[in-house]
C-alpha cells in the first residue's frame, strides 16, 4: 500500500531525534552537557525497571544537573536502593546506600541533611551483619538527633529484648510510648517482640492496649485475631477481626492468611507466620504501609530478606 507524502513528515520529524539520541548516548562522555542528559535518562530508566541499585550507582557518579528538586530525587533513589537491597537480604550494600543518606550533603545548596530513618535502617543492617556496636551507635545518634520521635527507642527496645535484657527493653518501650502512645502500630510491633521471646500473655496485653488507644489499628486487630485462634481456639473472634480489617484496610493482603487459618482451624494447630505489614519494594514515595512503623520484622532471626 502506498502512502504518498508520508516520507517527508516521518523523516523530518524523526531524524533530529535520532541525531539527539546519538549525541546524548554516543558522544555523551566527551560533551559535558550531553553527559548530564544521559545520566538523567539512564537513572530514570533504571528507576522505571525498578533496578534501584543501578540507578543509585549512575546517580552517585555525580554528573547530574543540580537544583530543581534534584536533591529530593537523589535521596529518593538512595532510599529506594537501600530499602530494596535490605528487603532482598543484601545488608552490606543496603548499609552502603543508607550510609549515603546518613550525612547527606546537598550538592546544590551545600547543606548537610541528616536522615533519621536511614540511620535506623543502617543500624538494622549492621545488626544483621553482626556489628552490634555500630548498630547501637546509629540508633543512639538517631534518638539524640530527634528526641521527639519514637522509632529509635522501639528499635533499641527490640535490641535489648533479643539480648535478654528485659528490664532495659521495657524502659525503652516505655520511652517510645511516652512519645507516641496513641499510635496503634507501635503496640503491634512491641507485642510482636514479646511474643517472639515467648511472653504470649504480655504480648496479648500489649495488643489489646493498642486496640484500646487506637481502635482502627489493623495490625493489633490482626494479632488479637491470631492469638484468639492460637490460645482460645476462638474462630468466631478471628473471623470478626478479618471482617473489621477488610472494612478498615481492604488492601491489606496478609489478612487472607488469617482468614484461611480461621476457616480450617483445628485445635492445637500452629499458625503460619503472618507479617503484620507488607513491605513493598518500590519507590519510597509509593509505599502504602510506611515501613518505618514496624521494625520487628527486620529483627527476627529467621528473617534474611525476601
Amino acid at each position, binding site marked *: 500500500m502506498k502512502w504518498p507524502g508520508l516520507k517527508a513528515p516521518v523523516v523530518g520529524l524523526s531524524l533530529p531525534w535520532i541525531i539527539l539520541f546519538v549525541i546524548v548516548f554516543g558522544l555523551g562522555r566527551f560533551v559535558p552537557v550531553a553527559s548530564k542528559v544521559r545520566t*538523567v535518562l539512564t537513572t530514570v530508566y533504571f*528507576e522505571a525497571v525498578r533496578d534501584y541499585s543501578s540507578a543509585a550507582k549512575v546517580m552517585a557518579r555525580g554528573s547530574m*544537573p543540580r537544583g530543581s528538586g534534584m536533591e529530593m530525587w537523589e535521596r529518593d533513589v538512595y532510599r529506594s536502593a537501600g530499602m530494596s537491597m535490605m528487603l532482598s537480604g543484601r545488608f552490606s550494600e543496603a548499609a552502603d546506600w543508607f550510609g549515603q543518606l546518613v550525612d547527606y550533603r546537598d550538592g546544590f545548596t551545600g547543606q548537610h541533611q541528616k536522615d533519621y530513618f536511614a540511620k535506623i535502617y543502617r543500624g538494622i543492617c549492621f545488626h544483621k551483619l553482626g556489628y552490634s556496636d555500630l548498630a547501637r551507635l546509629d540508633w543512639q545518634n538517631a534518638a539524640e538527633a530527634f528526641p521527639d520521635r519514637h522509632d529509635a527507642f522501639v528499635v533499641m527496645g527490640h535490641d535489648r529484648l533479643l539480648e535478654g535484657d528485659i528490664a532495659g527493653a521495657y524502659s525503652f518501650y516505655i520511652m517510645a510510648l511516652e512519645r*507516641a502512645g496513641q499510635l496503634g502500630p507501635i503496640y503491634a510491633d512491641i507485642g510482636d517482640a514479646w511474643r517472639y521471646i515467648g511472653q504470649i500473655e504480655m504480648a496479648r496485653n500489649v495488643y489489646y492496649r493498642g486496640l484500646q488507644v487506637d481502635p482502627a489499628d489493623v495490625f493489633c486487630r490482626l494479632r488479637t485475631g491470631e492469638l484468639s485462634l492460637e490460645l482460645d481456639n476462638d474462630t468466631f473472634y478471628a473471623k470478626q477481626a478479618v471482617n473489621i480489617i477488610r472494612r478498615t484496610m481492604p488492601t491489606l493482603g496478609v489478612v487472607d492468611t488469617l482468614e484461611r487459618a480461621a476457616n480450617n482451624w483445628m485445635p492445637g494447630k500452629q499458625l503460619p507466620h503472618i507479617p503484620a505489614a507488607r513491605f513493598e519494594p518500590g519507590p519510597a514515595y509509593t509505599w502504602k504501609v510506611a515501613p518505618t512503623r514496624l521494625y520487628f520484622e527486620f529483627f527476627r532471626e529467621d528473617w534474611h530478606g525476601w
Partner: protein
Amino acid sequence: MVGKTTKNCVLFPFWLPIWIVFVCFAVLYAVWTPPFMYPDEPTHLVGCLETLDPAIRERLERDVLELMSEHHLWARAGVESPVIEPEKFYQAPLLRIVPTQASKPFLYYQIAARVVGLADSKNLLVSLFLLRLFGVFLASISVAIFGVIVKEIFTEQMWQVGAMTIVFIPQYVYMAGAVNPMTTAWITGSMLILSGLWLLKPERRYQGWFLLLAACAIAPLTHPSSLALLPLCLTAAILGRKRLRRHKIPGWLWPLAGSVSALAAFIITLRKPFLVRSTLLRSAELIHGLRVYPDQPAINPGWFWEFSRWFWRSTILNFGWLTVEGNQWIYTFYTIIVCAIIVGWFLRILGQPQRRSDGDPLKVTVLVAGFLFMLLAATGPYFIRSSLSQGRYLFSAWPVIGILSALGLKSFIPVKYHLVFIGLFLFITCFICSWSLYFVLITRFYF
C-alpha cells in the same frame, strides 16, 4: 430561533450570557469555599508563592500550616485530621509529601506567582483568594473557546446553547476557582479540540496546525492531562488528509518541527530533570501496574461498580476536601439525562437519516475518538490501583462531552420540544448549581 445561523453573532456572541453566568457562579464558589478546601490547595499555594522566592519555602510551609490550623474547615469543626495536624498522626505534612514545584510543570506557577506579585500582599489568605480568581479567569477562557467549538458542530444556536449547558455541572464550576494547574489544562484541552476540528476544514488548516502546535507546546508545561486529547488531532489529521490533498504543506516544516521538539526535550531534560523523571515514571507505572501485585487479579469486576459510583459522584458533585455530596435527586436527574443521551445515540446510529442532520460525520468521529482516549486516560489509573484517577480529569474534554451529549439529546427529543427541553435543561442545571452553592455557603458560615 430554530434554524437560525450564527453569521451575525460576532458583536454579541450567543455564548456571552452563558459565559457571564458561569463566571458569576465560579466567582461565588471561589469566594465562599472555605480556605484550603480545594483539592491540594495548600501545596499549590506554596508552589506558587515559592516561585517568587525559593528560599522562603520552609517559612511558607509553617505559615500555611498555622493558617490551616486556624481556618481549615476540619479545624473549625473540631475534627482531628492528619492534614491539619500531621505531627499528631506521625505523618509528614502534606506540603512535604507533594512537592509541587519540583514534580509539576512550572508554567502555571510562574504565571500565578506574577499575579500574586501584582497585589504584593503579605497576607496569605489574600494571595489564596487572588489565585482562586485567577483560576476563574483561566476557566473562563476555556469556556469562551468552548463557545467557538460548538459553532463548528451545530448550525442552530439553540443546540449550541444546549451543548454549553454542561458547564453548569457544579463540580466543573467549583473546580474553575481552584488554585490548581488543572484549569490551564482545560484551556489546552479546548485548544486541541478546536485544532482537531479546524484540521478537517481546508480553509482553516493553517490555523488548525498553528493551534495544535501551540497547544502541544504549552500542555506539557501546564498540566499534561489534556495531552490525552492528542489522538483526537491525529485522527483529524488522518481523516482530513483526503480533504487537504489539494494543499501541500511545505517540506521544510517537518525537519524544523522535529528539530524544535528535540531541542526542547533536551533543554527541558537539562533544566527540569525532576519533571522529566516524574513524567516518565508515571508512564512506566502503566506497564508496572499490571504486574506489581501478582497475587491479585489485575481487574476485578467488583471494582467496576464501586468505581462507577465513585466516578459518577466525583464528576458531578463532590467538592474537593469538602466532600459535599448532593441529594439523591440530583444524581437521579443526571442519570436520566445520560440514559436519554445513550438512547439518543442508538437512535442516531440506527434511526432515519434526519436524526443525523446535524454534525459533520467526520467531526463527530474525531470527537468520539477524543472522548474515548480521554476516558481511558482518566479512568485507566483506577484500574491499575493507583489513586491518580479522578472524575475531574475529564474536564479537559468537557467541550467534547457537551457536544456528544447534545447530539444524543437532539436525536432523542422530538423536534417540537427542542426549545422547551433546552430552556428547562438550562434552568434545572442552573438551579442545581445554586443549590450546591447553598451547601458551600453552609460550610463557610455555619462552623
